[in-house]
């Protein structure tokens, strides 16, 4: 599964339960979203004045400071920040609360890939009513495309994961490996490293839906086409095939470490150099700093390897947003918080704490771009990452049931990693099982 936030693993230990026991604020507040944005802002302002309580479901730790600052600025407002689980666990809780119509939070963190699922069932407030549609251009194209998929603005991006090549410079130098600029070079680098040191691998992979879809995205594949409830899934397009061919070589020649991401082995490998690179979302910067402290000074960042010589396309890997569930009883107040956290002063707080922003202003800010990271040997890492954010290929769509599709990725595509099945066969099986699920759910998939 795509893990969008660096702190996810650290958090699993501190998850709090009791999702359904959330005490909902009994305070009043204009629940109906006004049609006109000026009016909405006025309503949000009066809601802030009047005060009240909102419940926020999120696992992003930087939101803690944001909530505190927000409360300090608006003394009448109380923000109950609750961590009801990370990723899928939270979506399950949210889905249940929405189905029950009770205990629904006012603001919920939702990763981009899961957003269409909630948006489609009208479970989220369309933020156009608050003038969110005018924020086009505030965010980089990847995240903005994700929150506006299918029309309307379903959420506002909090962080993004434009991809880049994180590599262990010490290992690369030791074995005289050049930083690969294309995927073909990447495969050769993997071969060279593994031959030089049979215990070392250029990267790890045991089958990860987020990684696979992101690479297909970069290669120009658009396997998912969604138009309302008409859905097409096609993993036979050129981009998907290009990915499958290249990555099949990596698997066949045993050039990927059979280590699952986020496992203890994974962190150990990143630390001791036996996993020498990762092509992954920009949020990995903060994760390396905090979770792999021993390798400080070893790592560096380079642009994502390309499918064609001289290409510039990148893709997003993970990334989250904040949304206002339609069942929120404090939508105006919720919007005020959302605005503060995603386009207001909250951004600076979050960037300070290590989040990778999704807003163009921050990404273009010279101070942000030119920050030197001691962990990365003084490299201006943000420059590479911010450039990647502006080069994300457009037109990617996720399925309105991507959460389920990702959950069966290892049943299908994952088989290519442990048996004689090829990636192409695995993708075909994934396509078929996803389509079956979609049709069972009332969509018209590949019909």
């Amino acid at each position, binding site marked *: 599964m795509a893990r969008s936030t660096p702190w996810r693993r650290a958090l699993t230990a501190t998850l709090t339960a009791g999702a359904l026991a959330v005490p909902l604020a009994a305070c009043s507040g204009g629940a109906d979203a006004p049609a006109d944005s000026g009016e909405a802002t006025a309503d949000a302002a009066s809601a802030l004045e009047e005060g009240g309580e909102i419940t926020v479901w999120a696992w992003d730790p930087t939101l803690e400071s944001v909530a505190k600052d927000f409360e300090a600025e608006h003394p009448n407002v109380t923000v109950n920040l609750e961590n009801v689980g990370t990723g*899928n666990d939270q979506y*399950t809780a949210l*889905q249940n609360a929405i189905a029950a119509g009770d205990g629904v939070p006012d603001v919920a963190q939702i990763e981009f890939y899961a957003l269409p*699922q909630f948006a*489609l*069932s009208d479970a989220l407030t369309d933020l156009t009513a608050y003038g969110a549609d005018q924020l086009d251009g505030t965010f980089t194209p990847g995240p903005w495309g994700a929150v506006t998929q299918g029309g309307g603005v379903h959420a506002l991006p909090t962080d993004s994961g434009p991809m880049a090549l994180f590599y262990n410079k010490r290992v690369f130098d030791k074995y005289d490996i050049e930083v690969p600029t294309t995927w073909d070079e990447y495969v050769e680098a993997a071969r060279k490293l593994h031959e030089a040191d049979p215990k070392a691998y250029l990267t790890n992979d*045991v*089958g990860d839906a987020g990684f696979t879809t992101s690479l297909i995205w970069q290669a120009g594949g658009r396997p998912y086409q969604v138009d309302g*409830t008409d859905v097409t899934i096609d993993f036979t397009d050129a981009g998907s095939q290009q990915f499958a061919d290249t990555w099949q070589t990596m698997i066949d020649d045993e050039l990927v470490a*059979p*280590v*699952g991401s986020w*496992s*203890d*082995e994974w962190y*150990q490998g990143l630390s001791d150099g036996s996993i020498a690179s990762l092509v992954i979302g920009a949020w990995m910067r903060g994760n390396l700093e905090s979770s792999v402290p021993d390798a400080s000074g070893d790592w560096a960042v380079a642009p994502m390897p390309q499918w064609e010589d001289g290409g510039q396309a990148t893709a997003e890997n993970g990334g989250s947003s904040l949304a206002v569930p339609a069942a929120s009883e404090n939508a105006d107040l919720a919007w005020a918080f959302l605005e503060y956290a995603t386009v207001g002063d909250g951004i600076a707080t979050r960037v300070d704490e290590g989040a990778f922003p999704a807003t163009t202003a921050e990404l273009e800010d010279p101070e942000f771009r030119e920050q030197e990271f001691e962990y990365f040997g003084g490299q201006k890492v943000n420059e590479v990452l911010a450039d990647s954010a502006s080069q994300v290929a457009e037109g990617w769509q996720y399925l*309105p*049931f991507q*959460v*389920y599709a990702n*959950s*069966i990725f*290892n*049943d299908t595509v*994952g*088989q290519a*990693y*442990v*048996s004689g099945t090829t990636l192409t066969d695995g993708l075909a099986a994934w396509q078929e099982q996803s389509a079956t*699920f979609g049709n*069972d*759910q*009332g*969509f018209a998939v590949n019909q």
Partner: protein
Amino acid sequence: MTTTSPPTTASTPTVVHRRSRRRWTGWMFVGPFMAVFALVFLAPIVYSLYLSVFRTQMVGGTTFVGLDNYARAMSDPQFWEGLGRVSLFLVVQVPIMLGIALLVALAIDSGRLYGKSFFRISIFMPYAVPAVVASLMWGFMYGTRFGLVGNLNEALGISLPDPLSPGLVLASIGNIVTWEFVGYNMLIFYAALRVVPHSLYEAAEIDGAGQWRVIGAIKLPAIRGALVIATIFSIIGSFQLFNEPSILQSLAPNAITTAFTPNLYAYSLSFSGQQYNYSATVAIIMGLITMVIAYVVQLRGMRKEA
């Protein structure tokens, strides 16, 4: 009927009145129990049955579909594969586990073992370890890179097969379950053996029977009830296999699919797929299959005993 009731037929109304009063008094006594029973035992089953005849779609909402979900389960290869897997698990793992448990119980009961309380406690100990912890522990040992298996490979320069590969993962799970439950079953057998009257052993000794003969002719027949019970528990446990594969899934995501066991399948259906209706159907069918098999085993076990 009571002898005090009037012989005349004219008193019928009184009888009816008395009967109804009697009935209500009875209900007052069993009422609290019945209420809790209905709420705790019947309601979940009824609710599952109710869920299983509907279908909720992301597009289109909820519709009544009758037995469609059951028909779908009948022809669902993932469900039957999972069932086949736990059945294989049942016929291989349960005899091994019960065999070891019986052997240990007989050894401890024989009185020839030095330090038998120590063995009894240490063999029972794994049962006190929560299944989740046990699976995690074994999962680390199974690791071929940093785990015990990996260490062995490195120290001895050998290449042991990966216990978490698709071909071996079921056996690895069987190993964990055996480790966990040998002690529990041993205790059931041992408790049954303790109540066998010693006079029988003395009589056998006088007749010149050896230990093996005593085991075959006295001990095993005496604990047949315990054997049947342990077998039924194990059958239910096998069909409900969930904790161990669910925990190991994060270590071997490609080997343990989302439909690895029927329980895991039901779980994935409802928690990743929001298919509560079909999930309830799978749960009900599994419940029925388990009941039927457990009942057949019980019938067989009891018939022999009679």
